[in-house]
């Protein structure tokens, strides 16, 4: 076991992990942050997406020990108390959530896009979530939601 320090959603945690433990495992099983989902554990489906210093990564193929000193954002850290992030609000408004299992990963990939490019084209939005597998929505309403969130953020609503 190795002692590491992780910064998750603005809080610092000290914990013992095995060197081979993935960030996904540590988030879910040790920190109880189960909003990040395990869809395949193979780096293929995108359900485990978190942001590492603002960049979307697959937490199931990221080692926990390599994340020391990095700012980790999971879905639980996106809202500010009662106030949802525009992406979260847009996913609700646009009916883009069905079973919800792909939703956290998809929202975080979209956040990584919108934080870099506040006015994406539909093609760019599709590309940003092309690694998020979804079986329920056909991606139609999620894409609409991300574009709607971009509009909200352009109008200066930092949180819906």
């Amino acid at each position, binding site marked *: 076991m190795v002692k590491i320090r992780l910064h998750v959603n603005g809080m610092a945690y000290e914990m013992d992990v095995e060197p081979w433990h993935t960030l996904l495992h540590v988030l879910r099983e040790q920190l109880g942050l189960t909003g990040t989902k395990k869809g395949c*554990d193979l780096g293929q489906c995108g359900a485990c997406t978190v942001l590492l210093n603002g960049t979307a990564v697959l937490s199931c193929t990221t080692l926990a020990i390599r994340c020391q000193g990095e700012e980790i954002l999971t879905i639980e850290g996106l809202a500010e108390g009662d106030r949802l992030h525009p992406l979260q609000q847009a996913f609700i408004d646009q009916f883009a*959530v*069905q079973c*919800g*299992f792909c*939703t*956290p990963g998809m929202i975080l990939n979209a956040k990584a896009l919108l934080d870099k490019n506040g006015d994406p084209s539909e093609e760019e939005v599709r590309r940003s979530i092309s690694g998020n597998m*979804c079986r*329920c929505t*056909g991606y139609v309403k999620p894409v609409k939601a991300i574009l709607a969130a971009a509009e909200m953020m352009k109008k200066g609503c930092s949180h819906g």
Partner: protein
Amino acid sequence: MDEGLAVLGKTFPRKDAEAKVRGGAQYAGDIILPGMLYAKCLRSPYAHANILEIDTSKAEKLPGVAAIITHKDVVPKIPFEGSKRDTYILEETVRYVGDEVAAVAAVSEEIAEEALRLIEVAYEELPAVFDPEEALRGDAPKIHPGGNLATYLRDKPFTFTREIGSVEEGFAKSDVVLERTYRTHMQSHVPMEPRASLAAWDSTGTLTLWDSNQGPFEIRAELANVLGLPLSKVRVITPYVGGSFGCKIPTFKAQGIVALLAKKAGRPVRLVFSREEQSVVGTRRHSWTLKLKVGAKRDGTLMAYDAKAYLNAGPIIFLGIIVCINQAHLTPKFSCPNRRYEACAVYTNCPPTSAFRGFGYFEADFAIGKLMDELCEEIGMDPLDFYLKNHIKSEEPYGMGQVPRILAFREAIQRSAERIGWKETWHKPGEKTLPNGKKHGIGMGISGGNAALGNSGAVIMMNEDGSVRLLSGATELGQGCQSEMSQIVAEVLGVRYEDVFVVSSDTAMTPYDQSQVASRTTVTMGNAVKGACEDLRGQLFEEAVRMLGGGVLPGDLRARDGWIYVAEDREKKIGIADVAKIFLEGKPPKIVPKGVLIGKGSYTTPSTPPPVGNAVVNMVEVEVDKDTGQIDVVRLVSAVDCGKVISPKGIEAQYESVLSGGVGFALTEELLLDPSTGRALNPTFLDYKIPTALDCFEMDPVIMVESHERHGPFGAKGVAEAAMAAAAPAISNAIYNALGLRVDFPATPEKVITALETQGKGA
């Protein structure tokens, strides 16, 4: 005075959406209990084998291992009732690559996996069979003691045979007769959430199982059966489910395994399928050999239809017999005076099956759609004209089920045709090359399934502030049933949608519900919820007339937007919350509480097959690149007869899933087995290709045809299961229209190029 509906047909935010976007929605695999152990299963590497010996001694010594079970631990040995007694939790024979052999519970998944490697098993490999017609031959390896023809009851082999009219006479009168054999392929459901179960026993010997399924009551009944427990000692709770589409209906060995491990270890045990396990063990689409024959007059009048269906059911029958019966009841969806259907379900050593959206009719309507398309070409008829002439009419008995249903096929076909511009766009096969060099094709297909089944109950309880709790066994798989039921509550009770709280799918808390299948929830649970609300509303109205005074009778009252008021004198009103408060709390010192405000309702579908179904139409345009073999769906129009619309966004959302189940089935998805070993070759996303956000095309918002369903609450009926069922024939026919040749599904570029080269057509 009829003010129209207050809530139904309008859009409200889904009840579960906020929890899901916050990451707070709990699925079975998210629950962590103190002392919880992690389970892994040892699985057979052989498609068919006897287990001669299992030695777990080395595995037991591994630090961190808490319990191991093998078939020796399954005592008493009780077969699964829901699978016609062909399966046990663990046994000495394995029947497909991946079948459970043993299981370990340990303090971590890694240690459990390491322990699996230390279990020594001596197998006697047996010959295996993977094709249903081969499995029926006399010399085929016997998969179950009773033979490979699945039995309905232990000793009676099942064959469904029924004839209406005389197909022999019908064929004799036909000008054109076509006979074809179709084999439909294996598709994986690929729910994003792999199946998960968490078992915990308490000190009264009661098992609680949190489980990802489509209905906790059937799971409870089966677990009580195989574990030898009374129902009162088993509680099944279904949290949010991350998609299912049919694969999570049955009670699996895995649930029995996790219960036994938890009992042996004396600690809670969680078992979560890996993605590979979900794709193989977690069941697949039923695959069929369908031998179809159709006879018609030159003017397109159908004279005879004959179908022989062989189901490749895998090694566990589960719903294999019911799916044959369902297919018989629901197909063909064409008017034909003479028709015959014969089906049997056959055991094979392929991965197991359960159900997949379009239960039996998806595959049959696919094959029938291709056959009718060929017939149209043979007689020189535009398919649209053929479908408008021959689709089953509303309330016309059809298939073998013969139950009249309201089905608005005509309007669905006409509106789809108008939307896509069929008459302007259709051309003869192979005739249209686009300026970009690709071949253009347009095709259509029809389908539809059941929209009611079995029985459901609901209870509604009002709080002293006028808010309500709905207790409903309906499981939230993603289809939005919590929200839809809340809309019905708001409509009937007159409370606000926001004031409805739903307690879901817990056998200890919610009344019986048969599970979320067959698009049954809108009608069966919807009617139960409506009944419960009417019961509660009656109690409120009785109290309200006392409070309003002046000779008002309950029949004079209406409830809407949080108020109870006299229909003819709207100013004579009282708040629902005020009524509830007096009823439940009284008003000290003079008025005492009346009691509790609880309403109950239930609904039983009046017949089998159910008298409610839906009608779905797809029309599709494709572009095919003859150099690369790439097929692009460029436009897809859907229409569904959905009865009265309760949640328009809900239906839209369901119909957008056609991308995955329908287009994926057509173009990219196939679960491949190694033909010599029966092992699945592509159980992960890498090699099993499901559509991604880049596989976009112009998907028209679904056309909602609002017939009025007399059996449904407010005229509504369910439509979700059939959402993907008309896409396969539509796409197949569109590809034929583009190229003038048939390509087997999934129509990968390789198959298109091969077809072009070998069939030599397509100018």
